[in-house]
């Protein structure tokens, strides 16, 4: 796989140097604004710099969505919007939506910019304090949640959002804009409302987020993964919004070695990783739900060694040290607890 790694390195360095180094000419915001594409619906000077390339399909078909809150409103064009909302426009400039909408607008002046998401602006411009006259994605804006989400889904329907309708977030009255804020770049990825996916989820799920502060946890607080590695907040065919068909398939995405199937399988392991592991964090080693050996002794009551009650007298500091409770306890001997591929491993010893 060194080829894959090399390709990735080349791409990275290529991208780094592909445009050379430019002069760091000091420029004012006004100069910048003047250079950025205008998107006045009248076209005007825009056509001069119009790209000869085909329009990007993702934005070329953007149209002004219907706003039930202002059924008679008409589009006024970006220039009118930003005459008042200049600061918003400044922040929006470097987002991907801005880039795509402006490029599409240059190629086809009928493609709206602000009004592609906010609906026709004429009524709002006349009565900006009248709620619902513009499709607003805020609490006070007066636009019903359903109208907000439907507006986003005009372009973003399907794919990862296929099961939004009926999902737990939809049923609990969340809007796209509870998690996303595409008005500026707040996060490196995903147009999140907060600095990261995980920070965004923690707005409501702080109780889950703090579990990641426990002794054993997946590397989410360390920024090496996000909630969205396992969950699809837009809805999925599982009730915990998992991205795959089952809990285990979700875990196998990063723990592929556990997939097997093994010559000898451990029933609760195959059934559901969560039988023994607490995925958001645990104060036991390796995300275990309860301390070994008691975790195992919830099911293992068989004859001889599994069903004894061991006490602190059997720790290394006690009078009768016992391997069944010290260190990895049961797992010191039944080490291949996730399944064994050894012909001599039916009890996961090998």
């Amino acid at each position, binding site marked *: 796989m060194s080829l894959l790694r090399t390709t990735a390195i080349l791409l990275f360095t290529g991208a780094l140097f592909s445009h050379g180094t430019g002069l760091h000419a000091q420029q004012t915001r006004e100069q910048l604004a003047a250079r950025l594409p205008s998107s006045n619906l009248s076209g005007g000077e825009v056509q001069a710099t119009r790209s000869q390339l085909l329009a990007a399909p993702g934005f070329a078909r953007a149209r002004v969505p219907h706003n039930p809150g202002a059924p008679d409103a008409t589009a006024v064009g970006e220039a009118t919007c930003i005459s*008042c909302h200049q600061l918003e426009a400044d922040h929006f400039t470097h987002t991907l939506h801005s880039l795509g909408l402006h490029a599409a607008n240059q190629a086809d002046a009928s493609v709206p910019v602000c009004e592609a998401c906010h609906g026709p602006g004429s009524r709002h411009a006349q009565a*900006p304090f009248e709620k619902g006259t513009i499709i607003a994605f805020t609490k006070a804006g007066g636009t019903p949640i359903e109208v907000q989400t439907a507006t986003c889904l005009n372009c973003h329907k399907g794919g990862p959002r296929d099961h939004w309708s009926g999902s737990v977030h939809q049923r609990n009255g969340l809007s796209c804009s509870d998690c996303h804020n595409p008005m500026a770049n707040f996060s490196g990825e995903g147009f999140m409302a907060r600095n990261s996916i995980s920070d965004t989820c923690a707005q409501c799920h702080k109780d889950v987020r703090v579990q990641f502060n426990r002794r054993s946890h997946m590397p989410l607080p360390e920024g090496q993964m996000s909630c969205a590695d396992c969950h699809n907040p837009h809805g999925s065919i599982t009730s915990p919004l998992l991205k795959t068909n089952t809990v285990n398939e979700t875990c196998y995405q990063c723990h592929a070695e556990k997939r097997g199937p093994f010559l000898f399988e451990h029933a609760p392991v195959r059934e559901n990783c969560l039988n023994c592991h607490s995925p958001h964090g645990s104060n036991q080693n390796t995300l275990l739900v309860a301390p070994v050996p008691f975790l195992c002794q919830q099911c293992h009551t068989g004859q001889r060694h599994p069903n004894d009650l061991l006490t602190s007298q059997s720790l290394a500091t006690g009078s009768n040290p016992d391997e069944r409770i010290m260190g990895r306890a049961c797992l010191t001997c039944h080490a291949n607890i996730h399944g064994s591929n050894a012909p001599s491993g039916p009890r996961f010893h090998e």
Partner: protein
Amino acid sequence: MTSKTMPCLALLAALPLLLPATVNAQAQSAAKPVAPAKWLDKRGHAPIHGDAAAGKAKSEVCRACHGQDGNTPVPTFPNLGGQRADFLYWELVELKHGYRYQSPMTEQLTPLSDQDVRDLAVFFASQPLAHASDAAADPAAIALGGQIFRGGDPQRGVPPCQGCHGADGEGIAQRPGWPVLQGQHPAYLAARLRAYRDGDPPNSSNDFIMNGVARGLDDAAIDGLAAWLVSRPGTPER
């Protein structure tokens, strides 16, 4: 929680209490003579209060230009009577603290205290709005002005003025700091709009808005707006 962690907690908990003093420095700059910032932030201030009678007593210096009750016959000076107190106050703050480049008003206001300024603002606001007149106005210009004021000019990126200034320029309840325009001297209004359009350096957060709004106005539109506004009847929003 250990006793050792408590001091940390206490320190962090106390931080927010210490903050307002610094955070609101910009807002409070109105009250203290500070080095002029680039622009004055007029957003989100609480409504002002003052004593109109005291203001009247202090308004002597204003009369020369703005008239006894804030209404002046000089067409290039703004009428102040019936203007909104919050708007007046923040305009005066802007002038007093030198946000506006080399304005003669700065010198006039320098000796006044912040309370004086509040009183003055409340006094002028309490005076009647004397509608100026523009008998020479062209009906076509008035019509154009009305059309832009009420409906904007999307082709030029001009929003309807009424959204922020009221259907007849009487101001809107939601923003006491945004001015009444009706009855104002057309010459004064037109001059201000031209300055905005031509990109005069903004002195306040509101100027950033008006610079953008006026960018698409041509002379005919400006004159039309000024003519239409002076013709509007009505009572200003308080």
